[in-house]
């Protein structure tokens, strides 16, 4: 190998390493959730709950999102498990009447209107967009793009967006692809009000 080739490779290799491995770590800021939460306990055999038991549509037909304290208080007025996080939830939040500042993985950008009610009505399963989130035992760290301010779940876990599974990525193209698969309209004003 000539010195020129060596120099070229010596420049290329770290750039590729930085670009493919370092850049994503630098681009996304990791923020831990305020509490750990096991969906698995709630939706598994022990809890036996469905997604809609907590993430329900309100009386006005709108999606209520992450359940508020009063919903959790129905079961957790006192700790019913042994984990430290549950005890902290009861002591620091429930007893003080303070909502838990959960960080929402799938928060859409402000210019997007996503009606859960319509998608639920069309029998789109929760897993189509949220994957196996309902069966996870812990909450992964929330990652936010330092430049765009979007949650990493909008782009998807892989920086290339290659070989992604159906629920990985919530960009507009992902929405349009799903709409096309189901023969639904993709007009601008359907999502951008």
């Amino acid at each position, binding site marked *: 190998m000539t010195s020129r080739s060596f120099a*070229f490779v010596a*420049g290329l290799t*770290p750039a*590729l390493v*930085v670009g493919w491995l370092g850049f*994503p770590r630098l681009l996304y800021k990791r923020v831990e959730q305020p509490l750990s939460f096991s969906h698995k306990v709630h939706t598994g055999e022990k809890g036996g709950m469905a997604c809609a038991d907590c993430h329900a549509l309100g009386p006005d037909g709108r999606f209520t999102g992450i359940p508020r304290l009063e919903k959790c208080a129905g079961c957790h007025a006192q700790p019913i498990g042994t984990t430290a996080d549950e005890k902290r939830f009861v002591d620091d939040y429930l007893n003080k009447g303070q909502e838990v500042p959960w960080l929402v993985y799938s928060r859409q950008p402000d210019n997007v209107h996503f009606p859960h009610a319509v998608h639920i009505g069309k029998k789109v399963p929760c897993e189509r967009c949220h994957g196996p989130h309902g069966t996870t035992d812990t909450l992964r760290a929330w990652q936010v793009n330092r430049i765009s301010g979007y949650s990493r779940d909008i782009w998807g876990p892989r920086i290339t967006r290659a070989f992604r599974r159906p629920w990985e990525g919530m960009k507009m193209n992902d929405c349009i692809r799903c709409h096309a698969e189901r023969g639904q309209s993709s007009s601008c004003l359907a999502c951008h009000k």
Partner: protein
Amino acid sequence: MRLSFTRRDVLFAATGSAAGLVLSPVPWKLLGDSAIWTQRSRFAPETLRGDITTRFSACTLCPAGCALRARCVGMPAVPVSLTGVAGHPVTHGALCPTGFALHHLMRHPLRLTGPAQIARRKGGVEATSRMADAVIASVADAVRSARTAAKVPLAVLDLRPGRMASLECRRPLAGIPGALHVVPASREASTFEAMRIRLEGAEGAVGPLGIDLDKPRTIVSFGAPLREGWGTPGTVPVLVTRQNQGSLRLVQIEAHRSPTAECADRWLPIRPGTEAAVALGLAHVLVTDGLVAPEVARRARDLDASFRTFVAPFEPSAAERISGIPASALRSLAHEMAEGSSLAIGSGAPGTEPLGPEEESAIAALNLLLGNAGPNGSVVGRHELPSPTLEGSLATEVPLTELADGSVGVLVIDGMAETVSWTLIASKLAKTATVVSLSPWLTGLSLHASWAVPSPAPLELLAEVLPPAGAPVASWGLALPLVAPPENAMAPAVFLSRLATALGNTAPAPEGAEALLKRRAAAIVAAGRGKVFVPGGALMAVADAGGPNGLYEKLSEGGAWIDDPLSTPTPLLRFTLLPPTHQEVASLAAVATLGRPERQGDAGAFLEPEGYVGATGAAPEPTILGKLGRESLLRATGAARRSTPVAIREV
């Protein structure tokens, strides 16, 4: 082994690094994220978070008064998106593109948030903030000076007459010597108004007229933007459905290939300003080819006496020379109109001057010849909207066209819709006239003002929605405020009251919109007619609405009052085909023969304003219109290009 690096090796290493970065996601991801960042940076509005509520109001940008359903966020609730009200009996849930973005206009850069002095500079106008008292004192001085210099020292041009707020503005004016309340002719209702004054009712004057859109099989439109929201945007789907079903044929007579012309079954391009010749040419064929129904001939007082003589010179070949429409096309169109139920509508194209009274007069005569004022006609009468009487004296109300040229010393323009051309207004002004605009925006007519005292914008004030032009029955609705107005915005009645005080008159304090509108509600309940629409509910009789307060409450929740049709909407009436005075007849003959030379220039570059005709010029265009215009059927094709009113004025 010893490695030595030369500067050339460093250059190769740098090249390798650059190549490595290009082959990595760095530049591509940075490009996309930076683009998003520009949309989320500090100059982009923050999206509100909070409880979501639904509130109802109406868009009062133009007389259509489309009902609005607002999605609001937070407390106090702020509207973040607007839609029409499904099932609404007047607007049918439709909105024009400007109405969809009405809530954006509150924060538009051209929004005036307080009194200002307007100065014209090269390339535009400039507004300098002034204290309200200083502006009122200056306007009062101008009125005092005009008492000797002008025939009408103070005139208030009410661009939306007939409202309770209009009556309230006339109260303080009553105490100012020589002050007049001036009203313009409605652009969209002018064809029907021209018909109405020719009809002789059994008990004198005939009430307002509208259209039964289910009746005509052919509509001949003289530039009326029927497929762009004429009357209300809700008429568009009705017309589209009928056209698609084949039960309606739309013929557009217009100088430009407008969107309505593109959607018409036939477009007849004419020379600008020659509409009167075309209408009289069609009338000529109807009369000379014996196409006038015997019943219509019996009821027309002057068909044989003078009208036949009047239209004799306008044979199709003459009309062709004037208008450019082939004589054969005119003849076949007249026969087509006579064969089935047909209707002619004037008003002129958006972005151009409205048709003059002469053109409307000719179109009205055509409608009368076609039997549109009879039981089988498409034009129907309706009740007047019940109105309460106000105590105290009111300033005299006069039509704008009846003001003498050069007579007005101080003109206050109350309203924002550019439904009157500035050319007409300017002709009424004295040489040293002062113009005061009460528009919330520095657009449209306010660009010609010396002073601006902005009134609250739509969605910021309580207002009423009157029946739109061409409505077959009367209706009434409320536009509730959804956001607070700027601190220094001033309702027109308040401004006029303070102006009257500054002129040394003791003006009564304004009663307030709610009290006035409750009076209207009481008048409607007292009339005992009509039904009440409530969103999501069935129509109920007005007697079941719970009295005036109950009616007001239901209308506050997005409801609307719809009048009953007249028991005999189109009785057999006598009428005259020619205008009432010799002067008007002579003027019609002159315009029809010569056309309007001042409009010949319209044949050149033509930029058509986007948005609904009534709303155009009322406010700055919201930016979302640009996106909608590119991505929807609003996109113009062919020679026409669409632009904003501001750009058009600059051109």
